[in-house]
């Protein structure tokens, strides 16, 4: 792909429009004073139309002071997202093993979250209004407004909450590798993470790693690795496989990876190849502009049919890191934007959603209810609904008490 990209880039000056068109438009629109100012600055002169030349250095000085002060303040203040960079946790994924560890942790979280759940609606109960506790944010999108989620919408959101906790939490996903103690596998990897409350989550993956091939052509080299193994989530084992392809050439690189866990047992007692959760990442970086775009696409297949596809990416809005999930399901796409709004031991996420053509803002809090940890969906009208925060089978203790007498104990 590098050759065609280079060709297009090399020839770009032959097709891009003349830079002077903008000035011509401005002249025709009577924006000549703006034009004169712009030209003056561009040529190193002084502008006399809107800004006096004497005031300009003062303005620049004030601007510089503001930039420096803002920088100092931003540096000194603790981040609401535990110091997440713009790329969020995705920035920590550098090596192939990092990706497989991330794949195992995130798919583990999705498998945890997608166990059957119960919803307890308490819309007629009085409750402290959300506006009192968390500042809501919203998307100005021109969509109709809704006050509450339907049960189905809540189940959709709830299916991703464990992943959201993992991706907006402050701790890193770490992994350590060793030689496997099981004869059928070469390696064992232990993946550790924490949920938003600080409770430890741990998964173990046994796997074989196979270099499928190295393809070298001129200065381009392509390597392909596969892994196959099992992922232990609590007492369950899920067959997993993954592939890593990298292409490097003259400082530019493209990598493509997927990691898949098979989730359903067929009539023969074996895991079916037609039902799985997969995370796929395509990552392209170019040395020239130092651009790296990262997004992770989760796809859920059941009986050979794609039933859900979600694109996860981080965005920065107003200095806050947001996790954006675009969830495609049943022919429509819902957009969910999460912010970590936790304060002290009050763990909560502010959510702005566009679901089924409606905009809705709500808060998801983690609360202890009769000894169980639940997600509480709080709405702007003061109503709320509770939904199971499924016991993470990867939970290893920490703050979370898993002794709640439910089926997975």
């Amino acid at each position, binding site marked *: *792909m590098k*050759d*065609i*990209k280079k*060709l*297009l*880039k090399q*020839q*770009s000056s*032959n*097709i*891009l*429009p*003349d830079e002077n*068109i*903008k000035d*011509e*438009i*401005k002249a*025709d*629109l009577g*924006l000549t*004073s*703006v034009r004169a100012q*712009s030209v003056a600055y561009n040529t190193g002169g002084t502008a006399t139309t809107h800004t006096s030349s004497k005031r300009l250095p003062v303005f620049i000085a004030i601007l510089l002071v503001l930039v420096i002060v803002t920088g100092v303040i931003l540096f000194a203040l603790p981040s609401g997202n535990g110091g997440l960079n713009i790329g969020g946790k995705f920035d920590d994924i550098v090596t192939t093993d990092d990706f497989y560890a991330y794949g195992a942790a995130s798919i583990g979280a999705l498998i945890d979250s997608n166990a059957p759940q119960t919803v307890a609606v308490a819309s007629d109960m009085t409750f402290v209004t959300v506006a009192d506790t968390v500042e809501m944010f919203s998307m*100005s*999108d*021109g969509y109709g407004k809704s006050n509450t989620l339907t049960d189905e919408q809540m189940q959709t959101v709830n299916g991703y909450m464990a992943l959201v906790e993992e991706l907006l939490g402050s701790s890193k996903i770490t992994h350590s590798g060793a030689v496997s103690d099981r004869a059928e596998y070469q390696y064992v990897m232990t993946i550790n993470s924490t949920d938003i409350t600080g409770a430890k989550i741990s998964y173990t993956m046994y796997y074989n790693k196979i270099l499928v091939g190295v393809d070298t052509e001129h200065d381009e080299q392509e390597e392909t690795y596969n892994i196959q193994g099992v992922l232990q989530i609590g007492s369950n084992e899920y067959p997993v496989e993954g592939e890593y392809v990298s292409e490097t050439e003259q400082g530019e690189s493209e990598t493509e990876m997927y990691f898949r866990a098979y989730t359903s047992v067929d009539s023969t007692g074996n895991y079916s190849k037609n039902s799985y959760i997969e995370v796929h990442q*395509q990552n*392209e970086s170019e040395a020239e*502009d130092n*651009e790296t*775009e990262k*997004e992770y*696409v989760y796809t859920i297949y059941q009986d050979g049919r794609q039933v859900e596809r979600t*694109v996860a*990416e981080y965005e920065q809005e107003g200095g806050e890191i947001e996790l954006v999930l*675009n969830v495609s399901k049943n022919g429509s*796409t819902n957009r969910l934007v999460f912010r970590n709004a936790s304060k002290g031991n009050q763990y909560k996420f502010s959510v702005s959603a566009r679901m089924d053509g409606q905009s809705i803002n709500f808060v998801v809090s983690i609360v202890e209810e009769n000894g169980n940890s639940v997600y509480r969906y709080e709405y702007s009208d003061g109503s709320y609904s509770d939904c199971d925060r499924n016991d993470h089978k990867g939970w290893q203790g920490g703050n979370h008490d898993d002794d709640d007498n439910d089926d997975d104990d």
Partner: protein
Amino acid sequence: MNRVLLDKKVAEYLQGDNTAFDYIYQNTSKAVYFGILYVVKVKAVAEDLLHDTYVRAMRNLTSYQSGTNFLGWLLRIGKNLALNYLDKHKKETLTDFEEESYRYGTTETELPYVFEVARKVLSEQDYQIVMLCQVAGYKRHEVAKLLSMPLATVTWKNNQALKKLRNILSEEGEI
């Protein structure tokens, strides 16, 4: 490109802040230009129509309804002007020299072969994505916002279009 911010700039322009035009043009003109070029094929004509699009749009800005996708509105104006142009000039059939300028090197209309091929073999949307990502220098996430598409879709379409272009040029011995 943030659609909300773009709408804000449009409102500022309407309120008399002429400097807002720079932001509006900077963040929309490449998409409008390539939309026009896809239709009219000739760079000089596309540049003229780009000029006309902005003059017409900014003079009729009150007819734009905030929150309804300003870029989409601009693209429609540009495309209508391009189609009107084609309609007016339909009797002026392009000569071989103009149609295949890359072969004959007529400097007025010459576009490198890769762009001629791109326009011929790619859909309008794929052409737009490739031109914005690979030629105009936008990041894919910027193009996704610009065209109101998921980043994954832009990435996929960009890659598919590049593969298609590369295969065709490779078959023809151009690369």
